[in-house]
């Protein structure tokens, strides 16, 4: 049996996906924390433990993401765009536009039918439009990041924001709280602000259906529906939007491992 692993060390979360015979057999997601090297080991160990495998059983490992160089067990490091493109082509062959809302950056890119990235834009140097924006606001409102989406859907009276800057939005949110605005209405307003920023990125890259949204931000149902409204288009949503890049890395690893079956000893273990 051939087993491969894709590891994605992101700025906020680390993910590992184990594949065999073209199917995902295990995956794990955990916070990246302050030591990427330890996290890279731990996330692989956790994913392996779920299927009672050890590193010895693995034929090939591809690492990707912001902290990929810390995954010392990897045979190869591949750019996160290549991995994501590959993961998307596997999950949604019809997807041509991808929005990836990560902890630190938001990326928008176009992919062809082979999963090759043809155009790309990243929210550089600014927390506006990224998952970081939501983290900042979750802290102000004292709610759990994962509860933001559900709560925001209860909003009946959205509070609109005057700023796109995460720092200014923080003070604006505090003022609105002081004025007695409801948390759900503030959240709905922030989703609107984020969605507008993401919409402008999508427009610059050019929207071509189908459009999919991945990354941690895609787990925020309020944000997803806000983006759908902005773009006036339904978004494809993976079951586990955080592991798309790791999945793509595993697929790339499998492509390397399978033809090399006769070569053996790729990993020397």
């Amino acid at each position, binding site marked *: 049996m051939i087993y491969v692993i894709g590891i994605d060390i992101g700025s906020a979360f680390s993910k590992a996906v184990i594949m065999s015979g073209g199917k995902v057999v295990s995956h794990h997601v955990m916070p990246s924390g302050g030591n990427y090297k330890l996290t890279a080991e731990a996330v692989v160990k956790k994913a392996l433990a779920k299927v009672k495998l050890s590193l010895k059983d693995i034929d090939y490992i591809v690492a990707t993401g912001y902290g990929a160089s810390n995954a010392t067990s990897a045979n190869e490091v591949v750019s996160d765009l290549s991995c994501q493109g590959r993961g998307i082509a596997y999950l949604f062959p019809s997807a041509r536009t991808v929005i990836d809302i990560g902890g*630190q950056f938001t990326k928008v890119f176009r992919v062809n039918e082979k999963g090759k990235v043809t155009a790309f834009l990243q929210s550089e*140097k*600014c*927390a506006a439009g990224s998952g*970081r924006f939501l983290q*900042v606001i979750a802290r102000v409102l004292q709610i759990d990041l994962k509860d933001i989406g559900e709560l925001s859907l209860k909003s009946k009276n959205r509070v609109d924001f005057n*700023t*796109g*800057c*995460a*720092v*200014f939005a923080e*003070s604006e949110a505090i*003022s609105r709280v*002081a*004025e007695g605005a409801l948390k759900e209405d503030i959240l709905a307003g922030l989703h609107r602000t984020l969605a507008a920023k993401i919409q402008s990125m999508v427009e610059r890259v050019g929207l071509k259906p189908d459009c999919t949204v991945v990354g941690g931000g895609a787990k925020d149902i309020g944000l997803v529906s806000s983006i759908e409204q902005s773009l006036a288009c339904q978004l494809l949503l993976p079951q586990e939007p955080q592991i798309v890049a790791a999945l793509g890395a595993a697929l790339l690893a499998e492509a390397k491992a399978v033809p090399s079956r006769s070569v053996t000893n790729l990993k020397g273990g």
Partner: protein
Amino acid sequence: MQYFAGVDIGSTMTKVVIMNQSLLASVIGPTGPEHRKLANRVMEEALKKARLSFKDITYLVATGYGRISVPFADKQITEISCHAKGVAYLLPEARTVLDIGGQDSKGIKLKDGRAVDFVMNDKCAAGTGRFLEVAAEELGVKLEDMGKLSLKAKKAVSISNTCTVFAAQEVVTKLSEGAALPDIIAGLHEAIATRIYGMLRRLKIEREVALTGGGAKNIGLVRALEAKMGFTVVVPPEPLLTGAIGAALLGRNIVKEAEEKGTPLARSKRRLQEATLFT
């Protein structure tokens, strides 16, 4: 005797001055969430200092981000005009004004004591006082100590992030890596100076450059900006007051013009005592 008041409600600080021929009284206090109540309180305080009552004030001009929250003002004037006027009065040699506020930064070109062009950043916290405020909090340093501390730096630590949110994170990382506090603060000043200089350069910078706003009270930031520009800047004795002083002076001009033309002066009907009833 005529008395003129200027009220400048900034995003972070509220300033009030009372003038006749010269500055009689000034009050500086933090802007809270309740602008209107605050405007009343600081006005009362300034009147007390000047030993005047509200009816002695001939004309009152409000300016700044919260200027609409001064119901007893006779007129609201933008902070660009007021800063220009204030600087032209205090530092007649100035041709360019750089105002670094708590929530925005502005560059103003002066000609014959009036604003002829300006640039402004209020969209992004980087390049405003807010950047330093967030960083100071992250470092556990008082904002007012940042300037002095940074002068002890041996080698400024380069801060690579522009975004305030990311820079705050970077600062913590640098600290954990063992960088010296003064070196980090000097790096922050360089980062914000680069950003502000980039904005100001969109104007044709002419000497002298006057620095105003809370940022001008930070000696480290002033030095960093001077290093960027390649010459020294001028700073008024109290850099927070230029907007309020300009407002009072513009009020004086309005009264003078009305008197010269013999037209009646349009004044607000709301009095200070009534205004306290507003919430």
